[in-house]
């Protein structure tokens, strides 16, 4: 069973339905015992970084999420849920993240060419990356994908200084962090649950870890 952590943000209906569509069971919950008993955990999220972290804290889930990731079970952050995996974010101030993946979250404004729209919204192609200094080995969540497959993005902030854990980028004037992995902890800036067949392949690979 996959636990989708419910902390009051985001569209969890699609995520739950998309996992059901690949024949896996997902439970949307904020109950620690249910999350603890899950085989895999997903941290979803949309909206503002600060609000999301505060909501996790107000439900007493902030430290619990870190503990869950430390158990070694497959853990996936999606979109803002991925951004929260990092040490900190500079979205309207400076805010502490979960610290599960080294790096930080910053605005894409000023990084991407000035003529491009913000948010980075739409379907973009994935380029796979090897963690720096290591031989390229495709991340297990991408095992059914090929380079150049399209996934759906919508974000105005992105993760930077995370080369060591970078497993995929997407080109938007510059390469932006599309996915990261730190051991059992995975993060996708894009929405697999909105990325059609390709997204379902990623969720299926994650569900079978």
């Amino acid at each position, binding site marked *: 069973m996959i636990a989708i952590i419910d902390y009051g943000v985001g*569209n969890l*209906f*699609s995520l739950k*339905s*998309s996992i*059901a*569509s690949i024949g896996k069971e997902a439970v949307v919950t904020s109950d620690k015992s249910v999350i603890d008993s899950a085989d895999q955990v997903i941290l979803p999220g*949309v*909206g*503002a970084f600060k609000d999301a972290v505060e909501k996790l804290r107000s439900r007493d889930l902030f430290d619990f999420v870190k503990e869950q990731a430390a158990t070694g079970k497959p853990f996936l952050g999606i979109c803002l849920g991925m951004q929260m995996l990092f040490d900190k974010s500079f979205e309207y101030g400076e805010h502490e993240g979960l610290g599960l993946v080294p790096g930080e979250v910053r605005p894409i404004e000023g990084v991407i060419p000035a*003529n*491009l*729209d*913000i*948010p*980075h*919204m*739409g*379907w*973009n*192609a994935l380029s796979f990356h090897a963690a720096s200094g290591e031989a390229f080995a495709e991340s297990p969540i991408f095992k059914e994908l090929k380079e150049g497959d*399209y996934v*759906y*993005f*919508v*974000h*105005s902030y992105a993760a930077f200084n995370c080369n060591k854990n970078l497993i995929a980028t*997407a*080109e*938007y004037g510059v390469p932006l962090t599309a996915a990261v992995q730190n051991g059992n902890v995975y993060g996708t800036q894009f*929405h697999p*649950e*909105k*990325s*059609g067949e390709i*997204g*379902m392949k990623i969720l299926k690979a994650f569900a079978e870890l």
Partner: protein
Amino acid sequence: MITKRIIPCLDVRDGRVVKGVNFEGLRDVNNPVELGKYYSNCGADELVFYDITASFEGRKLFTDILTKVASEIFIPLTVGGGINTVDDFDRVLKCGADKVSVNSGAIKNPDLINEAAQKYGNQCVVLSVDAKRVDGSFHVFLNGGRVDTGMDALKWIEDGVKRGAGEVVLNSIDTDGVKQGFDLEMLKAVNAIVKVPVIASGGAGSIQDFVTLFKEIPDVSAGLAASIFHFGEVKIDDLKKTLRDEGISVRL
């Protein structure tokens, strides 16, 4: 590289998809779930559902349909029609919508954009504008192009984006239903003033119209159409192949 999006729009009344020429003379076309699936399978990049039902019962039918669509189709879904309050956002987001499009509700109460953007994020709020030429400028129209608000469309769009709209759908009443191509002049004017993605709507009659759109205005993010897709005049996979052959980046 980010791809240009092709978006079929499905107007839904009492649980059925309809589309009229110049918004008049509605015709039943198909079942929203089946049509949505069909479009998703042939490469639509997103789907837009407009609820044109007036009654409470019809609205319930719409959210039931939306729930079914969102349970089976895993591409972005935008919902519009009858969105007047933050509660309306909540109602459709709970049924699986990803983005919510505001039109007359935001004209009556512009703060709706601010409130919704704060609560759900800018990416969730789509400002949909029906605009038409009046005495040399673009005016915002209501009720499917029948009522002139007198508001300047460019000023309204600029204001809406400042308030937090993360995307703009520009529907030209002048070209809508005419099938002679998108309103390039109006789209250029809007693209020049906003930094968020702009979706072109109104006027597509052929594959060539989309080629012209993306070649003439490289900043346009997406093209939206309804009847040409619903009546099979343009097939989305053919359209995307042609765009690719013309050097325009699409998801295939």
